[in-house]
Each structure stands twice: as C-alpha cells, then as structure tokens.
C-alpha cells in the first residue's frame, strides 16, 4: 500500500513536471493554417508562441499527416483549427497520437475557429445523398477566414479562449483584440472602397472556396471548374461551363495559387474572362505574412484582373 502511494505520488509529480506550463511561460498555440496562426499572433502578441501545421501554399484539405507534426501538437497548450471537417483527412490521427490531453476534443485547449462565424452552404439534403454531390463538407463551407467579419469573429473566439487558458493574460488578450479590431475597422473601409469595381461582377472559381469572399465583395458566383467539390473537371462540364460563362458575361476566373492553372487558363480564355491566381492563405506567397497582407493581395488580384 505504501509502495503504491509512493508510485502514485511519483507519477503525479512527473505528470506535473512533464505536462505543466509554468506561470511565466508563453501559451503554446498550434494552428492548422497560417491565417489562423496570424490571427492568434494578432490577439496573443508576446504572450503566445504560435506554430502553423501547414503552409499557405498547400491545399489545406490534403496536408500530410507527418509524425513530426505529432511532436508539435504534443507540446501545445491550444490547438486552433478551421473545423467544419476541412482538416478531417489529416488532423484527427495527429491529435490522437499526440497524447496531449490539453488539446483533445472537449478540452479548453481545443479551439474550433468556426464557432466564431456564421456558417454558409450547409447542405440541406439527406445524409445518404451527400457524397453524390462530391466531396462535400456536411457541416458547411469551411473556406471562411478571409472576409473581415469572419476574421473579427475568429479573433473574438481566440481572445476569449486564450483568456480562459491563461487568465493572467486576459487584459493583454483584450488589448490585442481591441488593437486588431481597430485596425480591421480601418482596413475594412479601405478594402470596401477598393473593391467597389467588383460589385456585381460575375465570377467562376476552381473550387467552391470563395463563396464567403464573393458574398462580402458582392460578386456573383456563376459556376465552378470542378463539376462537384473535389471531383476533377471533365470535358463535358468544362464545355458547358465555358458556354455558361459566355452567356453570363463572366469577367473573372479565380483559382487558388496552389492549384494548377493550365485548365483554368483555358477556361478563362475560351470563356472570355481573365484568370486570377489568388492567394487563399497567409504564406501563399513570400510577401504575404499577415492576415491584412493576405486580404490586400486578394483585393489587388481581383481588381487588377477585372
């Protein structure tokens, strides 16, 4: 019995040593994409250390679940993810293998950024018919992080959750959030003004990943190069799309910079539109290091293309 108590005590002590974060240490945050990592930095400032699991030049659906990422997650106090099943193909096994109780589902360190936004495109059809629509996200469209109102919602979630994890830093997170929102308010006016020429513009995108942006900038999505989400383009669909583009006076074909642009260029040329290869995440190009630079680059690409 005494030996058992000693063993229990030793394990408890070791657990405290290995699992604890000292009061003075920074909050260790892991984000699944670089834009979320930057929003964490904007809110958390010097009180947090942030690592992104993916790069902005990668397709966030298909990040390689490398065991080295397990190590990164293992040491995290918080995991911030896009949610809505965007990372379902690679994040769950990493989280399970991480052996990190702090970031498991149901724990305060498990932060679903989508809880800060109004989710669009939630399919309203029977579950057994969903896959007939392609690799559709049953919980809604997860490509939501670019419009300012969504970035604001995400930042508020982050400030709230960081405060719950690091109570002593609440004032700092409040200040970080306030500074971010202040700058965002100013930039939003600037972006709205710059994007005025885009209002009412008919566009075609490669994947259904620009819907939130199109709504914000009052552009109208006419079609998609993918016949269905995640399904490669076919000749028939491409021909129909080009015909539709000509009838609908489509001005822009938007494709994320990580997709091959050859087919998109063909569609744009034959549909009498211009091709825009746009960044969709911080880090998509060397000069895009923050959320603000990302949105600047997106607006500039669209405006120069129209």
């Amino acid at each position, binding site marked *: 019995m005494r030996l058992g108590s000693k063993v229990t005590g030793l394990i408890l002590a070791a657990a405290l040593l290995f*699992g604890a974060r000292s009061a003075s240490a920074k909050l260790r945050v892991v984000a699944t994409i670089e834009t979320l990592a930057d929003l964490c930095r904007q809110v958390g400032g010097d009180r947090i250390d942030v690592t992104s699991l993916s790069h902005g030049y990668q397709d966030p659906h298909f990040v390689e679940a490398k065991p080295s990422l397990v190590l990164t997650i293992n040491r995290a106090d918080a995991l911030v993810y896009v949610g809505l099943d965007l990372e379902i193909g690679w994040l769950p096994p990493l989280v399970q293998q991480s052996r990190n109780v702090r970031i498991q589902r149901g724990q305060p360190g498990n932060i679903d950024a989508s809880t800060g936004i109004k989710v669009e495109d939630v399919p309203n059809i029977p579950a057994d018919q969903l896959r007939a629509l392609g690799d559709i996200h049953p919980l809604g469209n997860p490509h939501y992080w670019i419009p300012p109102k969504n970035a604001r919602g995400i930042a508020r979630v982050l400030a709230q959750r960081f405060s719950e994890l690091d109570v002593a830093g609440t004032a700092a997170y409040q200040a970080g959030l306030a500074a971010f929102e202040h700058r965002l308010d100013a930039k939003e006016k600037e972006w709205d003004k710059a994007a005025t020429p885009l209002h009412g513009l008919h566009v075609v995108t490669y994947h259904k990943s620009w819907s939130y942006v199109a709504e914000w900038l009052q552009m109208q999505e006419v079609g998609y190069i993918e016949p269905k989400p995640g399904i490669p383009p076919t000749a028939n669909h491409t021909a129909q799309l080009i015909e539709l583009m000509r009838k609908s006076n489509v001005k822009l074909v938007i494709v994320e910079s990580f997709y091959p642009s050859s087919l998109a260029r063909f569609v744009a040329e034959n549909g009498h539109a211009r091709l825009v290869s746009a960044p969709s995440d911080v880090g998509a190009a060397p000069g895009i290091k923050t959320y603000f630079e990302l949105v600047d680059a997106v607006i500039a690409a669209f405006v120069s293309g129209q």
Partner: protein
Amino acid sequence: MLSFAIVCLLAQQIDQGALEKAMAADAAAKAATAPATTPGSTPAAAAGTPIPGVTPAAEGAPADATPGGGSWAAQQGARAPGGSLLNPALSFILDGSFGYYGAHTGDFAALGLPAAGDDPSVSRQGFALQEIELAAQSAIDPYFEGAIFLTIPNLEGLEVEEAYLVTTSLPLNLQIKAGTFRSQFGRNNTQHLHVQFFTRRPLMTALLFGEDGLRGPGAQVSVLLPLPWFATLYVESFSLTPPDDLAGVATFGGGVRLTPNNLTYTTELEQFFELAESHSLLVGLNFATGRSVDCPTAVACGPAPVEGPRSYFYGADVYYKWKPANVAQSYVSFQWTTEFYERTLADGGPTVGAGYSEAVVQIDRRFFLGGRFDLTGLPSGLDVPRRYGGAGSLTFTPSEFSRLRLYVQELGGPSVAATTVGFLQVEYAMGAHGAHPF
C-alpha cells in the same frame, strides 16, 4: 499491467492546466474584492468572464446560428446541424474482385504459399467479395476513444478484425490500447486491406505473421519518447490462438493463452525523420517472442492446446515518401516500403525469413502505379520455401471514396512452375471513416 493502468488513470485526473486556471481565477477573485487593484488588471480576469464585445452563444445553439460565441462552454454546446448526437462514425468498405490464381487448377497450390485472410479466396476464383468491413469509431468519454472493425472476408463468416479502446489523456506521453487489435509489428501488418495499393498482401504475411496477420486480444502500452525527433516505443502482449490450419509451423499461437509464459510479447520502436519538406522517412525496429505451433516437428497436435517451442520473430520496416508540400500543383508523389523479418525457433530450431519491397508512384491526380517484389525463404526452411513474386498494380481513384485496380502477380521458385495471378478489384467506402496515420 492493470494496476499500472489504474495508477495512470488516477494520475490523469489532475489536469495541470485546470489547476493553474482555478488558482488564477481564485487569485483574480481575491484581487477583485480587494480595496485597490493593480494597475492594468481587470476583474474580467476571472475564468469564463466574457470579454467586452464578445457575445457567447446560448447553450445548445447551433454553430451556424450565433457567430462570436467564443467561450469554451459555448463550443461544447454547439453541435453539428443534422448530426447524429450519440452515434459513432459508421462506415462500410467493400472490396470486390474478379480474377484467378493461375491458368490451370493447382498452379497456385503447387507453390505451397498460403493466402492471407483478406486476399481473394483461392477456392472462390472469378467474382468474389474479397472483404466487407464495417467500422464504428467514436470518443467513448473524456478518457478513451474506441473503434470496432468487423469484417467478412470472402463471404466466409463475420470476424472481428479489431475492437479496441485507446486512452487519450494519460500523463508522461503514455498511451494504452486494449482489446483485440493489429500489432504495431511492421508496417503492412498494421494496415487494413483498403489502405493498400495492392490486391494481395505480401507473401510473408501468411507465412510468418499468420493468415490474418499478427493480431489478437491483448494490450499495448506506448510512449512518445522525449527526443527531438518523433520516436515511439510500443510494448504489447497478446493471447493468440492456434491457426485453423495446423499442418505447418505458425510463428505464434502455441500454449495456453492464459499463462504468462505462453503469451506473445512484442516491442516496436518507430522513428520518423523529416529529411526535407517533401522527403519523409519512417523506420521501424520490431521484435516478438511467444510459443509457436509446430505440429509437424515438435509435438503432436491434439485437441488440447500444446506448448510449442519458443519462437523469436524480428526484423525491420522502412517507409520513404516523397510528396511535394503542394502536391496539387503536379499530383506526382512517390512512396517506397521495404520490410524483412526472420523467425527462429528455440533450442537450435530453424531460422527462416521473408520480406518484400514495393514502390508506388502517383502519376496523375487519380492514377497510382505500383510494383512489388516478394522474396520468401531467406533462409528457407520448413513451411517457408524459397519463392519469388513480382506484382504490378494500376489504381484509378475516381474520388476519395472509390478505387478501381488492375493487379497482376507472377509467382515462382526453384523447382516449381511459375504461375500468374490476376485480379480486377473494385473498392468503395460509404459513411464516415477515420483518417489513417502516416
């Protein structure tokens, strides 16, 4: 093992983050009631107090209804629209095939190579349902995740391929898995059929690992080692039963399943090296020991369990992958796997070995070209004859949830006639199936 698990479970009740949070909240509450506050501090520092401008979602509000509901409690209250509240993630995976084992009856049998349990049945050539898998995966509670994989191989009875729970919150980077499951021994052995790029498993599987692979009821303790690179050490124990076919030597399954001396023990060290952003290397070192079933040479087999000689099973697996971070630009990638194992029976018993090497090239977004070379009987011995196999596969994936595969394999060896096996395989998945590890 059990007492260790209980101690660990007790230990995990103390969550250091929660402890710090409670202490900080207590301190903040005291500060708030004090006559003077420290400059810069705020009563809102209490845990759970909303930040100005943040409107937490109502408890139970759907995620798409109230943006800005940022608290942890609000996230717990949010639920997926239309989601089944307490159902586990369910999926069915079907592998159907059409093909043959040799142009003439007996060609394949003459090779003396048993088929793995989820290979297309040798006795049912032509159209076959190679395997149907039903998977259920779910969080059980805050401490465990669970999974059950039922299979019907070749329409011959329902089997439990795996059914286990895994801890999620043990301290010291520990994890415990218990139930019936595939051993972490090797790489191919850990994989279900639908993860593979070939229709048949490597020849070594049925010869050394057993018809259904090295799997069974048991427990596993693993630890993520505190090293700069990913390294995980696994220790497992299994109660294995003798194979259905007692004609040959089975590496494990001898003796009484209850006796510690007769249990099968394994240990594996898995290490990952990120050579560059696009280049990954996974290396496994594996060792196992237990009682073999050695009817022909050691002891007479009867209806009662018998204790065969101690068997030692060891080897290594290497997995290399080249995949550009932005694979969507070109959709070209490459992966290479090689495994080799030997089995030694105690008291000067024979040592036999077998292995394979395979490469898979992604040549387009939806096309994968694979090649595999099998070698068994190095050294050769009883029940592990020297045989060669060369296989090629072409996989077409219309989407992530369906595959078509053309598979051809040439088999031969000293003093036996070569034979060709070929299959056209169709695979599809329905429902929500969990992602697979690297």
